[in-house]
C-alpha cells in the first residue's frame, strides 16, 4: 500500500486523478449502459422473461433458450451459417477491392479529388436505414432482370463464367467469385472508409524507397509486393477488423433482423438474448482468430 502511494506521488497522482476525471463519462456510461445490460442480457438468455405491467420477472430455465434457437427455430441456424459465409466472402472482397482502388487513387491523374469524393460518398449516403431499403428495392431488381433477359449473349462475364465453370477446376470457388462480381455494387459501397485508410497508409511510404527499387531494376509488380504490401500490412489488420464489424452490424443483416423480429414483434426477450449472444460470441471468436492470424504476418517498419 505504501509503495503504491509513493509511486503516484505529487504531480503524477494529480495527473492520474485528472485522467480519471477525463474518462469518467466513459466509465460511468460503460458501467451503466454496457456492463449492466451486457450481463443482464447474458442472464436473460438463460431465463424465461415475463413482462408485467410494472416489472418483469425472470425465471431461470437453463439452456432452454439456446436449445430453442438451435433446435426448434426453423430459420436461425440457416441464417447464421449463411450470414457468416457471406461475411467471410464479402469481407475478403471488400479488402481486395479497397486495396486495389486505393492503389489506383494513389497515382497522380486529373480529377483525383473528384473520384475520391465519389468513392467516399456511400459512407455518407448508404448508412443506417437507407441501405436496408436499397437491398429490397424491387423496382431496380425487375429493371435489372429485364435488362438481363433482353441482352442475353452479350454479357462478357457470362461468357467467362461459362468457360471457367466448364473447365471444371474449383467450380465452387468460382461461383463465389462470380457472386461477388455480380454484387460489386455492394462491395463498392461498403469500402469507402477502407479505401481512405489504405490511401493514408500509402501516402506515408517514402518515395525514395520506390526510387531505389526502380534503380536496382525492380519492376512495378515486384515493388508492389516487396514494398507496398509489407509497408501497409498493418492497415490490413485494421481494415479487416473494421470490415467484419461493420458487416455484422449492418441493419440489413439477416441475423440481426431475425433477432429484432423475435424481440420486438414476438416480445420473447429470452430467446432473443440467447440468439444475440450466440451471434456475438461467434463474431468475437472469428475476429479474434482471424486478426491473430493476420497480425502474425504484419510487418512493422519502425
Amino acid at each position: 500500500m505504501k509503495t503504491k502511494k509513493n509511486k503516484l506521488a505529487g504531480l503524477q497522482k494529480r495527473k492520474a486523478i485528472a485522467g480519471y476525471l477525463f474518462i469518467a463519462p466513459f466509465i460511468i456510461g460503460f458501467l451503466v449502459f454496457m456492463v449492466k445490460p451486457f450481463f443482464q442480457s447474458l442472464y436473460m438468455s438463460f431465463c424465461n422473461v415475463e413482462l408485467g405491467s410494472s416489472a418483469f420477472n425472470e425465471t431461470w430455465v437453463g439452456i432452454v433458450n439456446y436449445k430453442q434457437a438451435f433446435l426448434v427455430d426453423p430459420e436461425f441456424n440457416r441464417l447464421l451459417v449463411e450470414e457468416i459465409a457471406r461475411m467471410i466472402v464479402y469481407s475478403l472482397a471488400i479488402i481486395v477491392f479497397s486495396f486495389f482502388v486505393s492503389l489506383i487513387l494513389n497515382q497522380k491523374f486529373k480529377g483525383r479529388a473528384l473520384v475520391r469524393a465519389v468513392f467516399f460518398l456511400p459512407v455518407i449516403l448508404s448508412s443506417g436505414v437507407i441501405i436496408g431499403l436499397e437491398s429490397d428495392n424491387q423496382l431496380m431488381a425487375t429493371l435489372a432482370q429485364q435488362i438481363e433477359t433482353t441482352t442475353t449473349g452479350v454479357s462478357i462475364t457470362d461468357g467467362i463464367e461459362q468457360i471457367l465453370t466448364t473447365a471444371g477446376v474449383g467450380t465452387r470457388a468460382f461461383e463465389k467469385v462470380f457472386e461477388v462480381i455480380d454484387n460489386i455494387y455492394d462491395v463498392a459501397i461498403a469500402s469507402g472508409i477502407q479505401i481512405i485508410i489504405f490511401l493514408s497508409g500509402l501516402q506515408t511510404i517514402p518515395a525514395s524507397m520506390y526510387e531505389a527499387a526502380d534503380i536496382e531494376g525492380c519492376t512495378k509488380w515486384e515493388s508492389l509486393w516487396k514494398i507496398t504490401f509489407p509497408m501497409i500490412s498493418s492497415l490490413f489488420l485494421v481494415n479487416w477488423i473494421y470490415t467484419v464489424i461493420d458487416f455484422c452490424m449492418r441493419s440489413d443483416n439477416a441475423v440481426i433482423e431475425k433477432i429484432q423480429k423475435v424481440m420486438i414483434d414476438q416480445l420473447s426477450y429470452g430467446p432473443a438474448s440467447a440468439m444475440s449472444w450466440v451471434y456475438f460470441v461467434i463474431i468475437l471468436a472469428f475476429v479474434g482468430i482471424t486478426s491473430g492470424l493476420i497480425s502474425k504476418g504484419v510487418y512493422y517498419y519502425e
Partner: protein
Amino acid sequence: MNKTKVKTFDNFWERNRKSGGYLLRKKIMEIGVSVARFILLFGMCFLILQPILNKISVSFMTEQDLYNPIVISIPEHFTTANYKLAAELMTYSEALKNSFVISLTIAVLQIFVCTLVGYGFARFNFPFKKFWFACVILVILIPPQTISSSLHLHFKFFDILGLFKLIKGETLNLRGSILPYYLMSAGCMGLKNGLYIYMIRQFFRNIPADMEEAAYVDGCGTLKTFFRIMLPEAKPIITSCFLFSFVWQWTDGFYSKMFLGGTTLVSTSLARIVDSLGAYIQRITGVKTTISIAYSNCILATGTLMIIMPLIILYLFAQRQFVESISSTGIKM
C-alpha cells in the same frame, strides 16, 4: 511548362532512337495505363452514382411512365407530385426539423464527451489505463443488438438505485422519450462512439507533448490547457467526427427505432413510407387496394432522395473534412 513540352517533342524521335525504342514503349505504356485507369474509374464511379441518378429520374415520373417500356431515364410526363406526396407521407417538415435538432444536439454531446475521453486516454497515465482502453475496444466490438433486449427493459423500468420506486411507488417508463438516448450519449454509448474515442485518441497522441508541457510550466491548469491549447489543435478531427456523428445519426435506424420511437424522424418515417402510402391510398379511395410495386418504389426513391439531399449538400461543402481527417489520424495497430 508549355515550352519544355514542345522541346521534348522536337527531339522525341531522336531520343527514342538513341534509347533503342525504350522511350516510345514507355510513352505508350503510360498512355495505355491512363486510358485503362480512366475506364476503370469511370465504370466504378458510375456504379456508385447510378442508383442516385436513377432515383432522381424516377422521382419525376408519373405512375404511367413507370410502366411505359419506352421511358427509361427521361420522364415523358414530368411531375413533382411524387415529392408532394412523399413529403406528406413522411410529414417531412416536422420530421426534418426533429431530425435536425436531435442529430445536431446528439452529435454535439457525443463529440464533446468523446473528445474529453479521447484526450484522457491519449495524454494521461493512470492505473488500469490499459484495462479501460480495452473496454473502449470492446464497445466498438459489441454489436448494440446484443444488449438491445436488456436495454429495452432497462429503460422501460428505469430506476436509479431504487429511488423512483421509493418516491413514486413505481419505476419510470422512459421508452418512447428521447431522454435515454441523451443519457447514453453522455456516457459515450451512442452510435459508434467507441470509434470516435479511438480516432480522437489517435489524433491527440500525434500532437507533440511540448506544447502541453510549456503550458503546464507557465502555470496553466489541466482543464485550461485542454480547452485553450489542445482543443484548437484538434479542430480537424473534432469537426470530422462531428460530421460523421451527425450524418450517421441522421440515417440511423436502430437507435432511432429503439429509443426515439415516439418522435417523428426522417429515418424512421422513411422506413415506414411504403406502409403509410398504403394507408393513405386506402383513406382517399375508401377501398383496400394493393399498391403496385413500381409505384411504391417510386415513392420510396423520392423519399430517400429527400432525406439524403441535406446530406449531399453537407458533403459538397465539407468533403475535405470527411476524407482528410481519417488519413490525419494515422490509424495504426
